[in-house]
């Protein structure tokens, strides 16, 4: 029998799910912005590094990365002895590639005349980028970032395979204890929706509101 107490027990997985998702999002943000910038301002061949990085992350399943980090590389990188960190870094690296694409699209949507206007005031291309293009690109990127967070929350469930005590792992524990195959997973599914929906929705609406205030498309 799956009881309300089992449901409360299951909730204990939520903190780890959130922690993996938000830390990997932050890591992805930190990687995504420079990657987008390097592609926008090709210099020292760094844009090829960025290209390779994006292609790699697109082509390799994130679960394979997690397994590789935790079981394959813990000897070389002590950080990866932790299943939690292996999962977070695997998701964060992939998110960096995805977020760089979101920012690239957003930067390109800002328009050449904004850059030209900034340069006409005497700004360097970098100053123009920093003060004019980037702030507008952030706003345009908000809905895309919302989808990215939702994706990370869902894919954090792969960490289950490494034994991280997150929501999916907890639902599996409850399944074993209660012998109920349906309700523990159903409860997990509902909790995932309750977490992802408001966050993605909030960023979406904030994006639309700011876009209409600033007349951005």
């Amino acid at each position, binding site marked *: 029998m799956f009881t309300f107490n089992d449901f409360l027990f299951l909730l204990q997985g939520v903190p780890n799910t959130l922690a993996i998702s938000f830390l990997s999002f932050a890591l992805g943000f930190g990687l995504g912005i420079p990657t987008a910038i390097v592609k926008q301002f090709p210099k020292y061949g760094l844009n090829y590094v960025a290209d390779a990085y994006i292609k790699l992350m697109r082509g390799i399943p994130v679960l394979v990365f997690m397994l590789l980090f935790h079981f394959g590389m813990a000897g070389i990188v002590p950080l990866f002895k932790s299943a939690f960190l292996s999962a977070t870094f695997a998701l964060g690296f992939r998110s960096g590639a995805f977020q760089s694409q979101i920012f690239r699209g957003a930067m390109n949507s800002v328009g050449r005349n*904004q850059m030209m206007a900034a340069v006409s005031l005497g700004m360097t291309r970098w100053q123009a980028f920093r003060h004019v293009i980037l702030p507008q690109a952030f706003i345009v990127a908000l809905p895309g970032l919302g989808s990215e967070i939702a994706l990370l929350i869902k894919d954090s469930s792969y960490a289950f395979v490494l034994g991280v005590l997150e929501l999916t792992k907890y639902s599996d524990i409850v399944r074993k204890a209660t012998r109920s195959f349906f309700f523990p997973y159903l409860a997990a599914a509902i909790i995932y929706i309750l977490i992802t929906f408001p966050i993605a929705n909030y960023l979406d609406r904030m994006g639309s509101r700011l876009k209409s205030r600033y007349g951005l498309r």
Partner: protein
Amino acid sequence: MGMGEVILASRGLKKRYGDLWVLKGIDFEIERGQTKVIIGPSGSGKSTFLRIMGLLEPPTEGKIFFEGKDVYSSNLDLNMLRAKIGFVFQEPSLFRHLTALGNVKLGLRVVLKMKEEEARRRALEVLKAVKLEDWADHYPAQLSGGQQQRVGIARALAMNPDIILFDEPTASLDIELTWEVIDVMKELARRGVTMLVVTHELGFAKEVADEILFMDDGRIIESGPPEELLRNPKTQRAREFLSRLIGGA
């Protein structure tokens, strides 16, 4: 022409895009305090000429002189020169994430490195000059086209440039909104701001221009004081263009 100091000049200026020669050799100069107006048919190269004089694009051939110095062959700081040449664009080009005040302040802060307080005071002063001090806190999307263009003028003016280039600043505006922008520009001309203006507002040209330049197919084929050029164009092309402009408008 007077004895004033030449601020901006070009010699044998040419520009090519792919196989297309858009500018075919332009000699031009403007002295401090002058207002010159460029007219000419669509596609004749007016915007291209202005962008190149604003140092926003390099020429394919020829030279540009700022205060007598060859811009592209001396080791002048192009960004500092651009700060001394204001530019007002045809299409809306205000920074959309900043208020009117923020738009005017940004160049002061980032380029001229003014302190916040000083930049704010200067920006408000210039917004007042274009009669928009009450709109300082509005975003571009909340302003009319005419107001946006006036903020654009204020943004250029705030930098205290030696010259301001205007590329058809009223072309995308309704007639009622055209006046408020033209009025501001007339006022600047009277105050002695050096201006190079692409416009087909002949009333403006008549009232404040020292000279009108007629551009056709990448060349300036005729120039002269407004009364002369408008009443008595020497070239067939200018005659045709003006009769169409006055008849059609």
